[in-house]
């Protein structure tokens, strides 16, 4: 399941950041992805919700852009939501 989600998220990242070659690693942070600013973060959340059929709470949206958050943390959160 985690791998399927990872692939779907990767596709969303590619569309949002306009980079079809982008490859996601779980250790990546916002600093590792070109253009991941606060505007792109909002676009990313909106696209993820639509693609994955999940809904992020206000606090989760804020937490995901804090320091120390990685692509892995995003995967954890989505996986948790999908399982619920």
């Amino acid at each position, binding site marked *: 399941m985690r791998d399927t989600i990872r692939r779907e998220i990767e*596709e969303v990242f*590619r*569309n*949002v950041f*306009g980079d*079809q070659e982008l490859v996601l690693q779980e250790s990546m942070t916002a600093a590792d992805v070109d253009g991941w600013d*606060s*505007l792109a973060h*909002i*676009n990313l959340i*909106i*696209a993820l919700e*639509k*693609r994955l059929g999940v809904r*992020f*709470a*206000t606090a989760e*949206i*804020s937490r995901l852009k804090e320091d120390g958050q990685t692509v892995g943390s995003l995967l954890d959160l989505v996986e948790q939501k999908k399982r619920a």
Partner: protein
Amino acid sequence: MSPTKDLADLTERFLSVGHAQSPQVFAALMKGFQATMSAGCYADTAFFLRRIALPTLDYTSAQALSRVRSRLRSKIPASPQTARLAVIGSSTTTQLVPLIDFFLFAAGVDADFYEGGYGLFRQEILDPASELYQFAPKVIFLATGWRDLANRPALADARLDIVRLITAEQADWSSLWQVARERSGCQIIQNNFVLPACRALANHERRQAGSLSSYISSINESLAQAVPPFVTIHDVEHLATCWGRWKWDDPRFVHQAKLPCAPECLPDYAHSVASIVAAQLGLAKKCLVLDLDNTLWGGVVGDDGLGGIRLGQTDPEGEAYRAFQHYAKSLRHRGVLLAVCSKNNEETAREVFEKHSEMVLRLEDIACFKANWEDKATNLCRIAQELNIGTNSLVFVDDSPAERALVRKLLPEVAVPELPTDVADYIQALDRHRYFQTLSVETEDLRRTEYYRAEVSRRDAQTSASDIEGFLASLNMVAQIGPIMPDTLNRSVQLIQRSNQFNLTTRRRTAAELLAFLEDESWITRTVSLSDRFGDNGIISVILARAREDALEIDTWVMSCRVLKRTVEQFVLNHLYGLARQRGLKRIRGEFIPTAKNKLVRDHYANLGFAPVAGAQGERTLWDLTVADDSLQTTTYIREETNA
């Protein structure tokens, strides 16, 4: 296969999946755009990007497409239509502006934007040295929300106090608009205010004048009634209603990013704003061209016969066709021209209009009727020609995907909306495009089809007349000419925006600019209205001229093509000559700026006896006519009516 051919297929596939846009189809489409960009096929990229710019796009797709647009910006030739738009307000504009830009691009407009600081719109307007004014906008969009209302009632306030608050609120906004216009001479687009979904007073909300909903409704009403000509109220409240108020609001993104509405609604919002800006530039469509079989009624009249087609109260689908006809008729009532373009025998097709009791549309609603067996692209060109409008002013509605594809291919400038398979969805499919966006409704709009039908009678008379002079004399033409007045301002602006062929300089002067000219003694503004024995044509020409040094310089001269070759030009020239003489001016200076559409008037000034002036830049030409002591008597068959 070439990247362009690929992109063409991907575009069609994306459009045909409609609302169920799948992520795979969209990802493939984006790769298609990337391929044409990498191959340097920029014009093709732009073409398909325009095709796909629909108000129903979801947020993520629209943002991705708008990024393709911004990468294209430096790669394709500049469009002759430009806009300078300042977006200032109390929500973030970062997501909105690229989408407005994308939809303006789709309408053929290159726009430059200024985004104001978040929530600083009042300061920016009031401070004469603000960045807003340094940007020199042509249009300011005030993207405000109800939290910006400065005067809010308490729930228990008496009605009279609330009326005072409404007056104060109206005065606040009016003075902001006035200051902005005085400092920048620009048009203003002002959001009205969206009613919140939640109601403290539940069902009683509307009955209590001091409730938030009641107050906002009153303000909206007051703004709509008191709006000056240089302001357009953007009815964002209607958008919210159409989406559903709970859907319109996504408080997470208000708290998180101060978005003005839920992300999914943003493309539609941006499209709505862009359609107003495009209409200000004269890009709104003018004529709805309708197919007949399976578009206006169910079935094929040639096969099924008059009694066999599905239309009207006998079955639900027949009802739906009737509803669609009612919709078309409501457009015609407000000034959109209707035309028919159908593969049918003409008599068979006309018979339905004349004899079927359930027909809502009648022959007198149709300004141009083409039912024959020639291809539809040819017929569309004929319709445009007969109505004296450009093919880019047409919207073509046909249930057949093959006909739509043919027209898109042969006449890419014609708007051809996808039509759903269920007739019950036709109205929404068409209406959401906002093809016929309008900034005002004038007498001329309400009577437009009449004008065109009178024109047919005139043509018949012309055919029977033996010589043109005799024909013109027999029309008994009478004109009124005078300065633009408060009640003719909107129509003047409209004519300046809509005229493409008889337009000497194609300067799209706005209401704000006209108001400034009216206050300036060096400017002369004139409207001409014309009537004859077949009927009244309403206001058909606008002239703006300025006295500078010893010359009367004609800045703008537009005329409705309905009255071509009726000696209106000669009549106007005699009048301008008289004005120049009165003011002691020595010459009249004419100017012609060529565009793709105004070849018609290339020799306008030469024909009127002007002499070319050397030294004009580029393709623009300048012309002079010397003003002598006696009045000019160019031959005209139009008599001036003096009492207005």
